[in-house]
């Protein structure tokens, strides 16, 4: 007599018992799995996170380091905080950034003692050093270990302008009147080519170098003048340089003559005498308005006299 699945009752019982057992196990397993899957508790720490001790600088005297920018505060900090970190690690002072909206404000802060040391534009330094007893102590070196930068005249890729002489009757955009490399030096370059303001259709100043580039690339101006390092960033976006200036000194680190010589010496010591083997020397780099600062070199400020001469022309 055949019954369920053609089995005798004994083996049917065995199979049913096995199946039942398996089913119960499966049920239990599913339940445990569910519990483990929906239980999200836990720490999910990314590998990139690092633990950093909160530094306590209170034992060192605080010094204020003036920098200029029209960018949001956190961007300026991103640029200059590494320099501060480097100085804090390598001097017995605690340096803190002090922001300002313009070089003249920073000069005022230097003069009033509100900031102890500042990064100034070379034009601002050259024009205000006598009035406020300022003294350049260091100038940054670029990738080629030169404390030099250049101004460039540029146009867009497809422009018919190929040399400075072609600028006659064209519209030219310049950077701020406080910028030596973006305003004074290009004007000097035009004069060397015998071009005066009247030979151009239009000549205008814009507050910063990026604006100048944008105006030219958008076709609002036929050509523009900026610092070389800024222009280089736009070479792959349709910018073409057609004239380079003679080398100019880089923006100096400035103090007042009355500044504490110990602090000045400490800064110079930390920034100039960098041990090439040290891993944290990458501190003072990446100044926004151009080029990568690799290190610094001492200066007596005399090379900035050239700027005075050009601006007085």
């Amino acid at each position, binding site marked *: 007599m055949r019954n369920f*699945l*053609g*089995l005798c009752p004994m*083996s049917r019982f065995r*199979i049913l018992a096995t199946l039942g057992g*398996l089913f119960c196990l*499966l049920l239990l397993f*599913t339940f445990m*799995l*569910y519990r483990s*899957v*929906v239980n*999200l*508790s*836990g*720490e*999910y*720490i*990314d590998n*990139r*996170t*690092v*633990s*950093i*001790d*909160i*530094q306590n600088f209170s034992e060192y005297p605080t010094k204020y380091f003036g920098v200029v920018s029209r960018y*949001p*505060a*956190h961007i300026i*900090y*991103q640029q200059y*905080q*590494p320099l*501060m*970190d480097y100085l*804090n690690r390598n001097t017995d002072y605690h340096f*803190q950034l*002090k*922001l300002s909206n313009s070089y003249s404000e920073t000069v005022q802060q230097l003069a009033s003692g509100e900031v102890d040391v500042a990064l100034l534009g070379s034009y601002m330094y050259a024009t205000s050093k006598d009035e406020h007893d300022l003294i350049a102590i260091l100038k940054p070196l670029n990738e080629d270990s030169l404390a030099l930068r250049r101004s460039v005249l540029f146009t867009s890729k497809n422009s018919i302008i190929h040399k400075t002489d072609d600028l006659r009757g064209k519209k030219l955009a310049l950077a701020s009147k406080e910028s030596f490399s973006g305003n004074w030096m290009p004007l000097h370059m035009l004069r060397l080519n015998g071009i005066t303001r009247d030979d151009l259709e239009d000549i205008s100043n814009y507050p910063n170098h990026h604006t100048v580039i944008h105006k030219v690339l958008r076709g609002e101006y036929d050509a523009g003048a900026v610092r070389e390092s800024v222009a280089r960033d736009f070479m792959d976006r349709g910018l073409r340089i057609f004239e380079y200036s003679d080398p100019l000194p880089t923006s100096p680190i400035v103090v007042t003559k009355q500044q504490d010589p110990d602090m000045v010496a400490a800064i110079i010591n930390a920034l100039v005498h960098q041990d090439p083997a040290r891993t944290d020397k990458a501190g003072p780099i990446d100044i926004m308005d151009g080029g990568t600062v690799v290190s610094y070199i001492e200066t007596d400020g005399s090379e900035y006299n050239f700027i005075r001469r050009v601006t007085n022309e």
Partner: protein
Amino acid sequence: MSLKIKIIFYVGLIIAFLMMIISIAFLYQFRSVILEKEISNARSVSSAAAIPILDAFIFSEQDFYDPSQILERHISYFMANVNGMKFMHVYNRGNKLTASTHWDPATPLQARPPEFRVTNTVRESVSIHRHDEYGWVIEIEYPLFIAGKYLGTTVMGFDGNPVRKEIRSLFIGLLILNIVVTTITLYVLYKLISKLTRSLGQLTDAIDQFDLKTPEKKLPLPDSDDEIGHLGKRFGLLQQRLIESKHNLAESQRNIYRAEKLAFIGRLSSGVAHEINNSVNGIQSCMYAINKDPKNHEQTEEYMKLISEGLQHIEIIVKKLLEYSRKNSPSLVNVNIAEIVENVLKLCSYKIQKLGITITFKPDTDLPGIKADKYLIQEVLMNLLINSMDAVSDGGCICIKAGRKNRQSIYLSVEDDGPGIAPEFTDLIFEPFFTTKDTGKGTGLGLSVVQGVVESHDGTIRLDSQPGVKTVFTITLPINGKHERTIN
């Protein structure tokens, strides 16, 4: 366990297991993808939120103003614009709570952020945990760094319940998928195997039905176009060969039977000729002597007596031959073996007494009656008994036993303690005219007649003899008369 069950069970187990492993791998993979997505989302929001907070902290550092107010504005902006944001706390670089969504004194205590975070290290961390108020929360602790400068920490809580729900529905979906796929596979498997075993069953049924007696009957073999179909076809061929070889066997058996019969007739006639010839020769020489001297009455009388003895011997031989030839047609009636034994013992009682032999007869209590030819069986027993009586010396013992051998047959044995039969004779004693007795005393036909009768009853006869100890002749007879003959 049937093949079907085995296959379904093991294949089902394997499929379920594989499905489970794949699903679990899939589940955990997707779970981590979902979590990662959610966490990176939370981190993006945190880093976006960090920018205005950083600015606020920087400005407060520059101008020494309290950033709380502007931070509160940022927080409420983020709470309003970021979906699923549950709470947000901002700590300054002294790890003191500067702004929070939970200043409200109505907030339950455990939901309120600690006013100070007592820690010397900061790091970005994400944790997911159950919150009393919000259920599942993805909490991200985002330190605000600019280069090496630490400005504070934000702690943000995002709603983790939708993630959990998503993972749960993933789980349930996979579970259902698993169940459905396994069920469908098992069902298909069941159908396939049922088809397979059905044709297998068909084949075994066909094999069961196969009977050599009716080989012509067409069997319902499966004719599917697979291995089982082939098996069925092969079985058909095997059946053909069986039928053929059965024909051949019957044919050769007939041949053997014929040859055996001819040989037997030869042996029988030479035996008969020899026996009769002896007597006829004797009679002839007597006749010759009488003819030569007919007047010698004394001699004639003596020779006539010898002639009569010779004729008597011939008569006995002919009578026994007749008995022997009658063996093929026993007339079956219900007989009682015990009764037959008693009869025979009565017939022989004189001789038994004269020889001083002890005879015992022990029929089993369950000895059934059988269908047999009463006189032939009597003849058989008589022959066996006479042989034993001839064999035993004075004061010998003969033991007759009868009983049920199995459901279909009985046994009858005659045992004596005579000299026994030498092994070289055991094959010869059933031959007609084989005798060890003196001429005129035994004809040598007794055991042939016994064997013929027993075979005509479909019985068997067996000899067990230990020379010098005992001799047992055992015959078995079917209870219901002749067995059906399988070979004609």
